[in-house]
Structure formats: structure tokens, C-alpha cells
């Protein structure tokens, strides 16, 4: 069985922009390994006649017609904006400085 170490938890947290304390990393390592253990049980299930699936919800092809609907008024769009300039969301520098 594969296991998750602290390094992996740290990396995954970093990718998800989660800033965890050492204690939290420890806790997560334990919890995530429990999930893996749980998943290990599934390996015991016979899936010989089961097609691989990416979706547990039954049904396919849920689609809408190509019709334009109303968008939100700008005032509402900007309700959660930390910083707004003339109808734009203003964000800090994207590329690192040389």
C-alpha cells in the first residue's frame, strides 16, 4: 500500500495555497493515510465486469441550448472584489521582478 509522508502533504498544501502549521501537517498526514487505507479496501472488490467510470452520477449528455441569458449588473459582480478600478478587478503583480 502506498503511503503519504509529510513531504507530500506539504507539497499538496503548497499547490493548493494552503499554509499549514507543523501540527496541521502532522494531522493531515495521519488523516490522508486513513483515506488511503479506506481506499485499499476497495481493491478487494471484484470489478471484472465494471467499465471504468469517471462519474458516479448516472446519465450522460446533459446539455443546454446556445441561448444568451442576462449577466449580473457590474455592481453585483464587484461585491466581493478586494480592489476595483473602473469596472476591473485589480490584482497584484503577476510576474516576478528580475
Amino acid at each position, binding site marked *: 500500500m502506498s503511503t503519504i509522508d509529510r513531504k507530500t502533504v506539504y507539497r499538496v498544501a503548497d499547490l493548493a495555497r494552503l499554509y499549514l502549521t507543523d501540527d496541521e501537517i502532522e494531522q493531515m498526514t495521519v488523516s490522508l493515510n486513513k483515506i488511503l487505507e479506506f481506499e485499499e479496501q476497495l481493491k478487494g472488490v471484484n470489478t471484472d465486469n465494471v467499465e471504468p467510470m469517471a462519474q458516479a452520477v448516472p446519465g*450522460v449528455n446533459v446539455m*443546454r441550448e*446556445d441561448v444568451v441569458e442576462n*449577466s*449580473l449588473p*457590474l455592481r453585483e459582480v464587484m461585491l466581493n472584489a478586494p480592489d476595483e478600478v473602473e469596472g476591473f478587478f485589480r490584482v497584484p503583480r503577476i510576474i516576478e521582478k528580475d
Partner: protein
Amino acid sequence: MPLNDYTIVIGLEVHAELMTKSKLFCGCSTSFGSEANSQVCPRCLGLPGTLPVLNKKAVEYAVKAGLAFDCDISKYSKFDRKNYFYPDLSKAYQISQFDQPICGKGHVEFYVGGEKKVVGINRIHLEEEAGKSVHSGATISDSEFSLEDYNRCGIPLIEIVSEPDMRSPEEARIYMETLRNILRYVAVSDCKMEEGSLRCDANISLMPKGATKYGTRTEIKNMNSFRAVQKALEYEALRHAKILDRGEKIVQETRTWDDIAGITASMRSKEEAHDYRYFPEPDLVPIVLTDEFIDDIKNGLPELPVAKFHRYVDEYELPEYDAELITADKDLAEYFEAVIANYKDYKAVSNWLMGEFMRLVNEQSVEISEIKVKPEDLAMMFTLQEKGVISSKIAKTVFEEMFHSGKDPETIVKEKGLVQISDASEIEKIVLDVIEKNPGPVAQYLDGKERVLGFLVGQVMKLSKGKANPQMANDYLRAALAKMVKN
């Protein structure tokens, strides 16, 4: 030249916005050029609790594009989340397709310097656009902050991934132009590079001539025109060659093309994750396509450029050069066909379109679709010329007027008094006038210098303001001069 020692290997990832009216997963409008953030809804903003619903038209368009490139169409495909943080991506994930794209392998054919080239398509997948960043500085690198507009966020895109089959920057440009042409033929994307509805990222690597193992590649972004694609790749190939010649290694990285400086520069983004942690999109069910659905789209496909090219050569007996040039632009091909519906001298029409027509189109930098000259009016102009009502020289004047005013040729001929002079007595009068005014050339002609006749005919045309029937001018001039010899 260091480049001669290497084989250049190029692959392109081309993004084309689909021409749906609404976005891929919500009903917001896709129209271009609206006020910032005026076409967004909670889904575009990635607000918690919102759910995507797939636009049926986008699926149809993606399949249509796939069929146009001879791709295998997947009976089963699904969406995945591509996770990364970037300010133009409101949800911090893009809904894309990872391991089961809607279209599989296909290919594109085109000509490079008369040689046929086939480039493989690896896959075409459906995904959503990101928003648009406006930078405070001149470039992204020297901007202290950026402004985000999410109108574009969620517009349907297809990403066409080529095999690494291109061997020169020129091939890459022509491949890109061919893709645009085909996508416009099947009317799934307007492919305006300047508006960003057609974009490409290029992967390039060099390997020593004869080698089979590809070298380390770099990826180039931010090429905003076909010319830029070629220029950026030419620059990057040379940069690779110089590094390899020094015995150094290429750093695998993403670089941005600076069109003004004419260089590529390393793009070090704070947010670049390199680990997208793809997983199946739990909010969308799979797409399952039936043979009937695919066949319906296949049967509705218009004639594609390659088929058109062969038909022009076989049916209209156009030279390959003409056929290639006209079919390379959907609008031009449609225009050509509309003209020849009313005038059957195909080669004459082709000559005119490639000559006078394109000259004015380029000079005025207008789109062919916006041209005021109605195809049936152009056909009428040819008919007037054939009937001798106007000369070929006058035809040019008439056409220019048609081009600028959109009036029909008969009206223009009438208004401007451009009817060709075919009245014998009138032409004779002009001929005698020319002979009287040009004693020198006339004497030369009479001395046996036949070449001078051309000059004298020219004088007749000039005096008649181009309206004299050129054949009659020629005949009457000869006759009049012959008479002088006898005398």
C-alpha cells in the same frame, strides 16, 4: 550558419474560440469588445455553489472541427479539472479535457514552396477560456498590478494539438494559416488573431542533423500574428543553435515573444504550478455521441479547401496557382463562385480577382466580406467588356468606381460617359489627329520601324481618354498609314 547543422522540430498548440452565442457552461454572451465585466455571472466568477451546464452548440462545433481535420471522433469523452492559480482564472481551475478528449488523431495538408506537407493532429479538446488581464505597465513583467476582465472567462475554446511534425518556422506559419482557413470554412471560429480568438503556443527543439532523439524544448507564448509565429520561431531556433554550439544545455521553460524588440524572454511566473493535478470534473456528466449525431454533422460539412482546390483545377480548368490562391481564403472562394455563376470565363474572373480585386482589397485594407462590389455586378462588368461596350482599360476605371461607391457598372458607364468609342468616323477623326500631331514617329513608321505603331495607338487611346476601341484604333491607324505610303 549554425542552424544548418540542426533539424528543427516544432509542434503547435492552437486555441480557437468557438462562435457560440453564449459561453461554454453558462448563458453569458460571448460578444467581443463589451464593457469590462459586463458579461459575467456567478459561474464566470467561480462563486461557490454554482454549477456548469454544457452548451450543446459547442459540442457540435468541436466535432465539426474534428471532422474537418479527419480526426477520430470519440464516442465517449469527459471533462477534467486543470488546477492552477492565475488571476485570469476565477475558479482557480479550468474545465478542460485531459485523457478522453472529444477528438483524437487527424491530419492537415498544405503546400510549402510547392511541396506537399502533412502535419498530424494529436488531439482536439474542448475547454473554457480564461479571462483577460490588462497590465498597468508596458509588459506583464514591468507591471506593478494588473486589471482583470472576466468577459472572456468561459467562452468555449478548442485546443488543437499538433504532432511535432513541423521542420521550419515557415511551415509552422503556413500550418497555422491552413488551420485558420479550414476553421473558417466550417464556420466554427472567426479566427481573428488580432482579437485573440485564434492563438497559439509553440514548442520548439533542435537536434543534430540525422539524430532521432528530440532535444530539450522551449515553449513560446504571446505571438499575436501569423508573421509573429514565424519570427518568434526563427529567433528561438537561432537562440537554441547558439547555445548548443557552445556546448551548453537548453533550459526547458516557457518564454514570451516580444514583438517590438523581436526577441523571446524567459517567463518566470509566481503562480506557475507545473502540476495541474487533473481530475475528472465531478459537476459534469460525460458526453456520449451516437453515429447518427456524428454523421449528421459530417453530412452538413461544406466543401473544404483541398476538395475545392481540386474542383477548381478539374472543373474550371484553373491553373493550380490560381486555385491555391483563391481557395486559401474562404471569402475569396465564395466570391469567385458567386461571380462565375453569372459569367463563365473562369480564368478571366480568376485573373481579375487575383489582380485588380486583391490590389484594391490590400490597398484599402478591407475584408473581402465587407466589399461593396456585388459579385453579379462584377460579372456584368465582364459582360460589358466582352460585348465591347467598355475596353479593358476602362474596365479598370469602372471597377475602381464600383469598389468605392458600390454602384453597378452600367450606371457608372452611363454617368461617367465611359462607353467605348466604336463609331468608325469618330475613331478615324482621332487617328488623323494623332498622325498630324506626331510627324516624327509617323516618319519613323513609314521608314519601316513597325514598333512605333504601338506608340501611335497609345496616343489614340490617350486622346480618346481611353475610350477608343483598341482593336479599331489599331486597324484604322494601320489603314491610314498605309494610305500615306501609297501617296
